[in-house]
């Protein structure tokens, strides 16, 4: 097997063995998904027809709206957390030093370390969608799978670029990572996770338009709930592409600088 895929797979294999060894944790995570889904299902019953006008572009149903939001917000959280968490964990647990003297480059180590989290996030998203579609009546019959997949790909790339910047802070500052805190919280409030962006005042909507999560969640809802065509999804695709094109090279530059800084300061493996 090609070496470039063999190493990431080795990380996934290692993390899978590690996770499976904590048998109850996996069960609890699936229970957590069920609890969230049921909570929002009854919350949407309580809301009833309230806010239907805001939800009309996404099919008019609050439960479907929030389920897609909660499910795909997982990717943002994983992108933001897993890269920096893999560095932090390696520093704390002590494995980072052993990894850094291997014949694997630092970017491969960091990206591969977070791969399992992305796969598990995808599993969680699948569980959310299956629960929603088969047990709670979310209609995804017209879903544009191709469009949703494209949005998902761009979402991961654009979120990961912020995650890489976040990891750079951890590399140098170890704790108190401002990027992670700021982006996750601001995205949660302004990105259209629990409510459509249109309910926000105009000036907050302008701020919301600067966040990739806004385009990601909107695009995903349009693709899965309304079956919007690639043409209709173009504004979201373009925004996410532009964000990725600027942020990804920038994040790689920042990360390179952070690694060099940590090697100069001798703090690469400190915590």
């Amino acid at each position, binding site marked *: 097997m090609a070496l470039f895929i063999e190493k990431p797979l080795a990380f996934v294999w290692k993390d899978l063995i590690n996770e499976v060894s904590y048998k109850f944790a996996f069960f609890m995570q699936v229970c957590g998904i069920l609890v969230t889904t049921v909570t929002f299902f009854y919350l949407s019953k309580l809301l009833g027809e309230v806010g239907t006008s805001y939800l009309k572009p996404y099919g008019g149903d609050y439960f479907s709206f929030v389920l897609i939001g909660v499910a795909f917000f997982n990717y943002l959280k994983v992108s933001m957390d897993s890269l920096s968490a893999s560095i932090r964990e390696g520093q704390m647990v002590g494995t980072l*030093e*052993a990894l850094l003297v*291997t014949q694997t480059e630092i970017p491969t180590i960091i990206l591969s370390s977070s791969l399992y989290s992305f796969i598990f996030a995808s599993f969680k998203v699948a569980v959310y969608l299956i629960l929603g579609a088969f047990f709670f009546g979310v209609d995804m019959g017209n879903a544009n799978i191709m469009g949703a997949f494209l949005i998902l790909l761009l979402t991961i790339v654009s979120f990961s670029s912020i995650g890489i910047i976040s990891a750079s802070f951890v590399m140098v500052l170890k704790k*108190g990572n401002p990027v992670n805190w700021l982006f996750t919280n601001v995205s949660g409030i302004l990105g259209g996770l629990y409510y459509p962006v249109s309910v926000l005042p105009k000036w907050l909507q302008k701020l919301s338009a600067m966040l990739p999560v806004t385009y990601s969640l909107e695009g995903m809802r349009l693709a899965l709930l309304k079956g919007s065509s690639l043409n209709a999804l173009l504004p979201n695709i373009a925004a996410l592409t532009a964000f990725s094109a600027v942020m990804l090279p920038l994040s790689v530059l920042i990360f390179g600088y952070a690694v060099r800084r940590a090697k100069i300061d*001798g703090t690469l493996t400190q915590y």
Partner: protein
Amino acid sequence: MSEITKLSYCIETQDLTKKYPVIKGYGGLFTHLFRKKEIAALQNVSIRIKRGELFGLLGSNGAGKTTLIKILCTLVLPTSGTAWMNGLDVTKDQKKIRKLIGYVVGDERSFYWRLTGRQNLTFFAKLNNVPRHDAQARIESLLSFMELQYDADRMFKDYSTGMKQKLAIARGLLTEPEIIFMDEPTNGMDPVSAQKFRKLIKEKLVKTEKKTVIFATHNLHEAEELCDRIAIIHKGEVKTAGLIGEIKREFHSGKGYVIELKGPVTGFLEKIPYITSARKVTIIPDNSFSDTTQIEVEIKDGDNDIFPIVKEIADLGGKICSFYEKEISLGELFSMVIGRK
């Protein structure tokens, strides 16, 4: 670096210096840009290590041994000076250097505790580009080499300290490296396991496998037992380097002898101050029930001969059973070296 040096030495450092910035709090990140506060971890370190050598880096905690090893392992960049390994510059050829080295760290946290020993080795073999078809055979052979074959499928968390260290060596050897760095690998091991471990390094790695081993320790006994040559590091400076015997001679010019006297020597003890041919005579306290008394004599500067002293003791009534040259211990030497300005 000259071609001769490249061929002769496996590792060479020239005036290697490492200063760490002292940054306190977030404010420090800003003020550091204008007013740099630094602490020197290594100062002008120049050492040369030959191929196939078991070289000891000896120093107390915080002396700079780990910093030196981390620079050579490409984990830390030096502030100034140069270091070459097999002619490769540690700051420029990091990728190539990582192919040459194995790093055995005393820190048992560097493994995944919920993976078995074999799974840990398999994972690190992949990261070290060991081809899949070679990896399994190599892992089996290393497990057997380290006498871990029967515990290979136990989780790492269930290993004893000695087993963890053995697995660390096995990991360090996965790539069949030319050079192996060991940073306090016997930390936390019981004396019997540590003794076995040292034997394994000397007999198997150096004598059989012909590896170059750089062994950092603060354990003087360990360094004396293992190493051909040592460098004593203190406060970031190499105080001395060379063969242990040569360093002993350099720092301890005055020759000392131990003389064993037969029987009760009560009457003789009062005469000791009258032994004029020795610089100093000391009675060695003895808690055993033997019927001999040992005295330590230091011969005068410029003298090389013990016989005038032996004759004088005999003339004064001392019954000499035996005498032998006293060798200074590495512990005493270490105190002398780090105490010298």
